[in-house]
């Protein structure tokens, strides 16, 4: 299992109020799996993704990423884990506006200590792979939404991580560029990456082999295509 959650609880404090975002989630995701997470707004999808991506620590329970329990890791160990094992794709793209497409893609490699020339070389390759070989030096503002999301996907791949986490990657895109992004993500899955996608779009969600339904911080059901 590349991802394993045991009875995970996440509680946010808003002043005196406690918000129970996750109330006890147990989930195992095998290596190379294609998982969709669906559920109403506020059901805890993003919270779950942040835990799987080592951006956050659970309030209770255990989260294993590639066998490592992240609940008790230091900030620095978490950073290393994110750098090596996880690539994030966000609904708002979250590219850095003053950097070019190439520099955005190279950023995670900088943090990983890759040499400048190797960074540029690989960033070019990745941008070519997502079909943006002719947009290397464009700033995000000079790119369309679909193109921005493809830059973000290239960035997620920079350090060749095991896991790709996409939180509503098509939420800000029109149908056709959304479809292109979906196909790109699925291509990565075919190449062996574990793909976890949060989506509101049932059509998109149905394409995954493993479908997780959340509600009120709990798993309501897991469907698997052609099995279980």
């Amino acid at each position, binding site marked *: 299992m590349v991802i394993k959650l045991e009875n995970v609880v996440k509680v946010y404090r808003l002043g005196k109020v406690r918000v129970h975002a996750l109330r006890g989630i147990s989930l195992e995701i095998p290596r190379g799996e294609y998982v969709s997470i669906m559920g109403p707004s506020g059901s805890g999808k993003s919270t779950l993704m942040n835990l799987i991506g080592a951006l*956050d620590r659970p309030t209770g329970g255990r989260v294993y990423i590639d066998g490592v329990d992240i609940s008790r890791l230091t900030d620095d160990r978490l950073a*290393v884990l994110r750098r090596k094992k996880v690539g994030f794709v966000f609904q708002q793209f979250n590219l850095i506006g003053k950097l070019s497409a190439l520099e955005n893609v190279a950023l995670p490699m900088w943090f990983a200590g890759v040499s400048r020339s190797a960074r540029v070389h690989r960033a070019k390759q990745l941008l070519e792979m997502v079909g943006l070989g002719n947009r290397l030096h464009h700033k995000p503002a000079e790119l369309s939404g679909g193109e921005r999301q493809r830059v973000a996907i290239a960035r997620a791949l920079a350090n060749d991580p095991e896991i790709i986490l996409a939180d509503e990657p098509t939420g800000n895109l029109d149908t056709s560029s959304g479809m292109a992004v979906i196909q790109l993500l699925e291509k990565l899955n075919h190449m062996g990456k574990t793909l976890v996608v949060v989506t509101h779009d049932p059509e998109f969600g149905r394409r995954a082999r493993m479908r997780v339904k959340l509600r009120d911080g709990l798993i309501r059901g897991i469907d698997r295509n052609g099995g279980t």
Partner: protein
Amino acid sequence: MAVLDYLIFSLRNLSHHKLRSFLTLLGVIIGIMAVVSMISIGSGMKASLKEQLEQLGSDKVFILPRIAYGTAAVTLSDDDADAVARVPGVAFVSPLYSVAGDVAYRNERKIVKIYGVDPEKAEATFGAGASGYQLLKGRWLQRGDVYKAVIGYGVHDDVFSRDINVGSVLRIHGVEFQVVGVFKKTGDREKDYTIYANLDAVRGIFGVGDRVTLIIARVDKGADIEEVRQRIERLLEDRKGSKENFFVMTQKEIIERVGEAYRVVQVVFGGLAAVSLIVGAVGIANTMVMNVTERTREIGVLKATGASNAQVLRIFLTDAAILGVAGGAAGIALGYLISLSINMAAARYLGEGMLTTAVTPELVVFALGFSLIIGVVAGIYPAYRAVRLDPVEALRG
């Protein structure tokens, strides 16, 4: 190189907010400007002082009346000079009378400084030592020279529209003097623009009897100059009733007195520098806090893509360091301009070579290093805030 990556990343940010960055930096700019001009003036003063005192010589005691409200509090006379000459340890004395007088050459008239000197002692007093006066043409004043004069290079070359040479005749208050020698350029405006003539003749023209304005006493070889100085001081105290009204100084004391004047400069500039640098540091800290707040989401992205706390810290410290160094560089440039204008003003009003301020490479490196440290120190707290941001919160914007 890792440092380079941080620099490139930071420069991308700062060029976004040029005006704000500049305003932030005013404090640092003014502070570093003050530091640079202060140090350059200070080292210039020390260097030119040292040079001048070497010219004066370390074996001489200078006796002069204290000037209060534009006039001398006491007068010194030939008798005082003779009495000083009899003090044990004094080899010989040169009485001097200096005055600014009306000098005519052909049909031009100018006000020029005139030194009345004892012709017999002139060469021994002024010509001694490697850095003393040197003749360009003609000869020194000699025993028996009365209406004869030796002129500084500026008088020869510059004061009148025609050059004055050996053999030319000048009229000082209508009395004719024949020029017998021209000194080489010393670089000291006071010396170069002076006419040197017989003490008694000059005093006669100006009707000042046996008054002297300066007595230079040269001490015997091997004598303790401070002891001789004290003896002279005691002698004059007896003769004048109080030692409040005249100075008896050696080279060393003159250095100390100028050093005191420089200390005032240091306190003023140093205070200005300290205040501005504190203001500058606060400005940088303030800008950096804004910077961190504005870039909250970016910080979330940096962390999500694998930046460690140390890397985030370095990113923001680099920003602050660049701000500091940029302010420092601008301050150095302004300080250099100030130093340059002081040089020009000093050359014009004090004489060439009187004060040569210098912005040395060491000073530039020091100032840059200092502004770098200011930037980094000012950036610590804002950078720490960036580090402390929770990545999930930061990504929410």
